């Protein structure tokens, strides 16, 4: 107990002592994008990094790579790789993402785990290290923070989830966010999701998404995000242990944001 307190205190002191920029966590996963990131309570590989409690829903070890291109501009592209090791006691999730170009980039690294408290409730936590690099007179900055999530199975078809990012915002200048969502498994192939998301200094965003499995291999996804207002579309194809997903965000002002991801699951 004393050891865990010391580790926590160490993290807090480090966070408090670091200089702050204003980076934001860039969400990844083409499947998540296809549902407008309304995935706080929806199981999935990349969804497990949107709410760490979902790590417990992964049945096998999996590796994935994701690429996102914002507004069709290469300088705003983001690359990420992740791995989930489905250990029996507590799964382990690792994620690394790179956002930007050679002159300016942001490196995000996270390690998380989750435990199932009861049959219905799971808790997850992830420690994040964020590094920001700029050229010229811009100094490099680094941050350490953490995020946590919880899911609760209300019934066999309803799951609620909640996720916090950087709850220690008074100690640093990073924005905090809180997401709360619900997932409805209407049938074996049809999921409907609804999430509310609030990032500090930004308006509340409501996201909803639908995922529909066709022919057990093809998945169609769509969603809507209210702030910024955008429609989302996605498609996924599964063959054996490989799954490929593509997703798009369409905003009338900023244009198209696209994403692709490939996931390899070892059973």
């Amino acid at each position, binding site marked *: 107990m004393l050891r865990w307190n010391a580790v926590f205190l160490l993290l807090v002191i480090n966070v408090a002592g670091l200089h702050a920029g204003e980076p934001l966590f860039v969400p990844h996963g083409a499947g998540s994008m296809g549902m407008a990131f309304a995935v706080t309570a929806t199981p999935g590989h990349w969804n497990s990094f949107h709410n760490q409690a979902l790590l417990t829903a992964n049945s096998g070890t999996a590796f994935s790579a994701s690429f996102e291109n914002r507004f069709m501009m290469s300088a705003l592209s983001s690359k990420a790789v992740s791995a989930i090791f489905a250990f029996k006691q507590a799964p382990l999730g690792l994620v690394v993402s790179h956002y930007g170009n050679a002159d300016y980039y942001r490196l995000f690294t996270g390690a998380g785990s989750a435990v199932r408290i009861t049959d219905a409730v799971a808790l997850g936590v992830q420690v994040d290290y964020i590094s920001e690099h700029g050229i010229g007179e811009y100094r490099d900055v680094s941050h350490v923070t953490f995020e946590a999530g919880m899911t609760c199975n209300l019934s066999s078809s309803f799951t609620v989830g909640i996720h916090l990012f950087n709850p220690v915002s008074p100690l640093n200048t990073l924005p905090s966010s809180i997401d709360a969502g619900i997932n409805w498994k*209407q*049938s074996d192939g049809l999921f409907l999701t609804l999430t509310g998301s609030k990032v500090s200094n930004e308006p509340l965003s409501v996201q*909803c998404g639908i995922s529909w499995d066709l022919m057990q291999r093809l998945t169609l996804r*769509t969603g809507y995000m209210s702030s910024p207002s955008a429609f989302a579309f996605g498609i996924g194809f599964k063959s054996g242990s490989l799954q490929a997903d593509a997703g798009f965000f369409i905003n009338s002002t900023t244009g198209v944001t696209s994403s692709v991801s490939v996931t390899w699951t070892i059973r």
Partner: protein
Amino acid sequence: MDNQMKCRNLHGEQCQRRLRWPPDRKAACAAMILGLLSCPLLCQEESQDLRESVEEILALSEDADPAAMLEELEELKVSPVNINSGDEKEISRLFFLTEFQVMVLADHVRKNGSVVTLYELALLPAFDRNTVLLMAPYISLEPGAPKGGKSYGRTLVTMTAAARFNCAESNTEGIRSLLKVKHKQGSFSIGLTAENDPGEPFTFKNGPGTDFLSAYIQYEGKGVINRIIAGDFSVRAGEGLLFNSSQWMGSWLSSPSFMSGRSVSAPYTSTEENSFFRGISLTLGSMNTGAVLFASSNEIDARVVLGEDSTATGVSHLVRGGIHVSESQHEAQNSLTETIAGIRLIAGAEKVRGGVSVSSTWFSLPFIPDITEPQNLHAFAGDRLLNLAADIRAGTGSVLFFAEAGIGLSGPLADMDGSNQQGLQADTTGTGLPGSVSAIGGLNFRDSWAATAGLRAKPSGRVTFNFLTRHFAPGYHAFHSGAFKAGSGSGNETGLAASLHLEAARHLFITAAADHYRIPAPRYRSSSSSSGSRIELKGEYQPRDDISVRLSWTTSSREYDAARETGAATSVTHTRQQLGLVFDISPAHTLRLTTRASASFISPSQEKGYLLCQDLCYSFRSLPLKLWFRYALCSTEGWDSRLYAWENDLLNSFSVPALYGEMTRSFVMLSWKPAGRIEARVKYGFTDSGSNPGGGLKQEVKGQVRIGF
């Protein structure tokens, strides 16, 4: 009859029962059957969803004119569609159904027998609860009529007179008279519509007596010649890029489907005085394979542009409304002749159907828009227009895909290079605009096209999802179009829309819809490109057939020019939010009470308003009388925060008054139906808007007699 056997789709698969069946199914079925057959739905009205959508459409667009749309629906209410006839022609009178839906329904009746309850329809492929509720007021579940025997036909005569009395003189005083006659005998039918608006004289001098006179004669065959219409008719094709007489669907965001109704050429019976064809229409073949040919020459209202010698050299724009009282309205009356010839070819099978439409339009006077106004930079100019479009629909019951693409090429006044354009407004700004179309003539394919595509998915019995994307180039023109579009006109919009209809739980139904669009070229009140959005959230809780609660929230925003006296205009986003609650209950078999409350909020003006309304509908047991009563109280801070309230009205009529300021509105209406084919209605309405500018006491009296022979 075994309901289990009846509920099968075209593939013989048994439909899943996900609708709310009471625990004791047999008793509940019997109760529903008895309830539906022994007493017709005494106060059967349009679906509440449709009413709310009409109110929202009117609140968002002052140009919206749902008259033609609602009159089409009223026609169906007067003569409901007999679903159990199994006849595709009869079922296709429900114009808002697609060909696929018509075929599914007809096939279901032929294979499984008569439909007993509405719930059964919702289980069919391509149908859902919202579509069935939309159909409900316009269908009959009586068994199909036996064939054979002499028939002298059926005649329906409807005479309506309405008068308004205002405390202050205005041009809305006077009597509006309307006569509708329809006779159908065998394969032939004829119809006549005659109307005089308030203030318009009844005279045969230089006219047919009434201000508006419309008639048709129709032959419906059973062979290659499907239908011939001589007289006034309307056309609907594809997704409405070229022709769509049912323009209401163009703005209904939470409609059951974004797909346009069935392609058809139908007799015109509305009182809207400009949006129809006058000539001859020939329909060949069937719904799957056929052709529609038509030719029309019709005089319409337009604002005439006079030359230096005071002769008409052109027109600046069309005039809608159909009121001919003032001098300028008389000048615009029938000042332009529109001649159209068109052909539509259809081919397809059960799961795929496509069509090609071509039309050519000539005007007796060229259009000469004032291109010094920003909104007219892409306005139609010239005296001829060529439209081409191709459409396709495909899919099974769970997923239906539709798309249409079209192009509109306007002919220059004289030469192709834009020279020798007599009467055309000169471009005094020197901007030239070489890449644009229409206003300075010439052909420009890049800026003259339009396309729309979408899908309707029903992944389960409880979820229906619709999606639509559209692009209308600023220079795309089609004078009779009615595709899904947030703004008015035929072009200048790009957007995405989606809607979700969900049976969230037992008795609980939720609808969510969103639409985002961009208007790339200047338009009225916006001198630069702009964007807008609409969001609708609706929930309905209906634990029993006699009680329902509806809650709705809608928000719409659009950019407009900010008020400035000098300099380039900046834009400001105007947002309208509206919250509504409707509580509907039938405490007794003959009594129905509806309570509604609405509130609106406008930004950035911060205007607010609310509306409270109580309706009562009572059917007398021993007398053939029915009574409607309403009292509405409204308080808004201005016109922008106005609220609309749908009213029960006479047959073939509708009333959706705008309430604003400090206003009360009441009406009482009485219907007397001594026999099945005779009905008389009288309505008295009373509006007190004393503190409003130009307000005061306004009364109206309407009377109507409908006789069927």
